[in-house]
């Protein structure tokens, strides 16, 4: 590859500079809103799934079964189909079906059950005896959730959140295609529809760097929090 070719790529990319910056903001917005919903709604759902398991504090076969079934139902949908079928709901909540905020609705919808399952799995790793010790001390269910479950599983929960973040970074690319914007959308529009392969490659590289960074931060944080 000669200097002229490199120069041409550089020119392509610098012309797109503002668009790339905007795409980054859009991706961050979609990811942020999706993840926040996952943590705020999926987290508690995961805790309920865990607590209603047989042998746990609030063992309830019926409730556990129904919730598990709902979680599986949403997770069974291919994301693109989920997105299209949620268009009426998105319009109801956001008032529009275009833009990163609108795209966050289906993202959140998919992320909530996903994170709930991750939380349930992570909590299962806590030894039953530790929860029992807290019960024997007279801890209330709320104290057990806060001081035992969440604290003992904190490293695993961070790792789960890391997995969720990286999975949903690629989901944002799909959401972008139907009008959400973002890095993935930019890559498709320029790289695929306009045959500007260099833009495509640059955007993919950018995503690779972002994923590596997220994983690095997630690992470091989980390691620091894990005293087991």
């Amino acid at each position: 590859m000669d200097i002229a070719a490199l120069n041409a790529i550089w020119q392509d990319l610098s012309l797109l500079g503002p668009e790339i910056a905007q795409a980054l903001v859009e991706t961050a917005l979609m990811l942020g809103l999706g993840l926040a919903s996952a943590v705020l709604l999926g987290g508690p759902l995961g805790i309920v799934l865990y607590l209603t398991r047989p042998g746990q504090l609030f063992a309830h076969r019926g409730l556990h079964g129904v919730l598990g079934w709902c979680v599986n139902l949403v997770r069974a949908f291919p994301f693109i189909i989920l997105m299209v079928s949620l268009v009426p709901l998105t319009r109801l909540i956001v008032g529009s079906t275009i833009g990163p905020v609108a795209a966050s609705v289906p993202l959140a919808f998919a992320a909530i059950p996903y994170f709930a399952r991750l939380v349930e799995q992570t909590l299962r790793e806590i030894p039953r005896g530790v929860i029992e010790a807290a019960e024997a001390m007279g801890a209330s269910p709320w104290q057990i959730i806060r001081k035992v479950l969440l604290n003992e599983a904190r490293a695993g929960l961070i790792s789960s959140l890391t997995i969720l973040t990286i999975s949903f970074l690629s989901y944002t690319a799909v959401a972008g295609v139907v009008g959400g914007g973002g890095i993935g959308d930019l890559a498709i529009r320029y790289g695929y529809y306009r045959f500007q392969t260099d833009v495509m490659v640059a955007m993919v590289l950018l995503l690779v760097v972002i994923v590596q960074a997220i994983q690095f931060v997630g690992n470091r944080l989980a390691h620091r929090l894990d005293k087991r």
Partner: protein
Amino acid sequence: MIHLQSVSKRFQHPEGGWFHAVDDTTLSIAQGEIFGLIGFSGAGKSTLLRLINLLERPDAGRVLVDGQDLTALSARDLRHARQNIGMVFQQFNLLANRTVAQNVAFPLEIAGWSKADIAQRVAECLDVVHLSDRAEHYPAQLSGGQKQRVGIARALAPRPHVILADEPTSALDPKTTQSILSCLKEINQRFGVTVVIVTHEMGVVRSVCHRAAVLDQGSVVEVMDIAGGEVDARSELARSLLEAA
């Protein structure tokens, strides 16, 4: 102090049918005594212990601790009553993400103590179990014997009237076992805490207990007096446990 009145507890086998872990058992444990529950595996001794703080709820019978019928309490009152009953476990069951001091503080946080009172009480309890220099360590950094001493300090922290110990030395080597037993003994003598200890080793009963119940198939076979390390055993089962020791 502790009265178990005709308590029964059965568990359902996975393939159906019932296993009677504790079968219509009556037992009284006096204040200030170290009482052993001994028997072979599956005799129902751990279940019987867990009935005392209602970790297992009896299918029939009453459980009285400190004159209070635990089986009649609401969930809230039961939690309150449990704060007067410490528990020590075979597998220690410490919180891995909390330091030694934070583990001992845990039952006090639950009981709603102030920060200053907690700090003072944690220091006292760690001193009792000789772990003051390990306060900021995490359980993973401790030996088995040290973990169990944290477990004991944690049980002792809320000034309980009773400590229940479920095979507290079964995961430990003989030398560490002795140090844990003398720790329990010291707590019993210094603070007058009633201790109920489950074990399958006659050596444990001999070295710390005042009395011990021999259990078989969910029933008390006999209650032995132990004085000066001498066990007054009459039943065949108790003798075979003595021989095994």
